């Protein structure tokens, strides 16, 4: 072992730091990545009073509990290592999540939907499902010794998202002014309507480990901050509405879920060429 110590000292005295031209991964600088994204809505679950509660699933006429342990998504990314330690990427991602319509009494007034002159109140709604599609340009950078697309890197992205409610067999429990309760399943939402826009800022620490001469295994932790600009939608208090969920300010509930989606795990494969 002594000879190794001697060698190390010799190497350190003679070696110059070599960060020359960018050879990429075995000469390949472009890559396409496909990753799955998984996140556990722990913070949302803890901070939402109705999370994991009876609002989630309908069993016959009753609303039965069901937990929301994981949300997931899929990313497709194309990128190029512009230099040894700087790269550019464009990412299209799609993910889905469940969210609760919680106990905001004002939002849950359904009188306009029935338009009979009587008061109707939404008592319970199943958890709703939403799909978010994001387009995001990303910059990727490493320290001095980087060799993109290989190895440990940092990514920062600012993207644009569209959140849409997914079609499903939702149940809404409604009570009229006389205390009669019934389940409404029809005309809940206009699924052809435009989604809600939001902006996403993302930081990710990512590791790419080579599998063979073309494929890299990706593993990363992604931190998100979502911003939903204000929109005037829902809370239509003066006129008849065609769909029941139009009366509910979906944007706030979606924002509430996405805002708590801070950390997610992403893993997948990159093909280099």
């Amino acid at each position: 072992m002594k000879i190794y110590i001697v060698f190390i000292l010799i190497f350190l005295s003679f070696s110059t730091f070599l960060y020359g031209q960018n050879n990429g991964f075995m000469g390949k600088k472009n890559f396409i990545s496909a990753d799955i994204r998984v996140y556990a809505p722990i913070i949302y679950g803890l901070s939402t009073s109705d999370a994991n509660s009876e609002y989630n699933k309908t069993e016959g006429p009753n609303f039965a509990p069901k937990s929301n342990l994981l949300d997931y998504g899929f990313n497709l990314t194309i990128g190029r290592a512009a230099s040894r330690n700087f790269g550019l990427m464009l990412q299209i991602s799609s993910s889905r999540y469940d969210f609760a319509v919680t106990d905001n009494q004002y939002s849950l007034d359904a009188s306009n939907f029935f338009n009979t002159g009587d008061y109707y109140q939404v008592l319970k709604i199943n958890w709703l499902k939403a799909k978010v599609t994001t387009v995001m340009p990303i910059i990727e950078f490493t320290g001095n010794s980087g060799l993109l697309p290989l190895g440990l890197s940092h990514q920062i992205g600012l993207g644009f998202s569209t959140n849409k409610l997914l079609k499903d067999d939702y149940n809404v429990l409604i009570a009229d002014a006389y205390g009669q309760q019934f389940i409404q399943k029809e005309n809940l939402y206009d699924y052809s309507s435009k989604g809600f826009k939001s902006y996403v800022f993302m930081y990710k620490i990512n590791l790419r480990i080579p599998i063979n001469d073309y494929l890299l295994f990706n593993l990363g932790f992604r931190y998100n901050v979502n911003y939903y600009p204000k929109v005037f939608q829902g809370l239509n208090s003066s006129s008849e509405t065609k769909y029941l969920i139009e009366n509910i300010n979906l944007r706030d509930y979606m924002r509430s879920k996405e805002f708590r989606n801070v950390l997610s795990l992403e893993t997948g494969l990159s093909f280099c060429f």
Partner: protein
Amino acid sequence: MSDLIQSESFINRCDELKKIVDDEKTDKKLDKAEREKIKKKENKTDISNFILVDPAAVSHKKGKVDYNVSEELTEKFNESFKVASEKLNLKMQTVGKGNLADLGTAGFNEKSLFTTLLIQISNNDKLDIFPVDYSYLEKVTEDFGTNKLVFSIIEHSYKVEFSSTAFALIVFPPMLLGYLPLPFILGNRTEINLIVLDISNSKITSGASYNFREPVSKKGIQARLYDILSNINTKK
């Protein structure tokens, strides 16, 4: 005195020193990027045919050398050199660990000779040295068909270090949750050092010091060596 001033050897030496002074003046005028560019150019050498001398690997665990893992890492390192040089069409001949059984006593002597030369150079790096066994070196150079020796060593360690200040994030648990995976990802530290020694003038002509933080794997080492050898080699 006038004889001395007019002598060819004196004039040549004067020119050499003048050039060094001029180069230093020019070097001071250059910005960092230009200096690096020149340095990279100077760091290049022809290694289309080279002798890899006893590539070494050391793996540390809990502050001590892990001999079993070091042995496995040496094999990976040897194999990676072969693959990287093949991909770059470089002719590589190995002397040292892994093939001494095949090369026998002659191989052991060659390895010792090269190692001694390196140590001799390291002890006298500012002087022109006269190699210990000059004639034998000449013969070995002819046998191998090259005068370029490559010495390289890889060191790896894995240590998970939690920052004590980061635990202040306990006041905001989501941030602490976000911090927790980072020490595990950043725990790997690998360093590859490589030098190219030219036997013909007993000088170290190129070198590379290179570190990375992904888990050490055969393909990962291959990619890094591909990059190092590609950057050093002048002939593409």
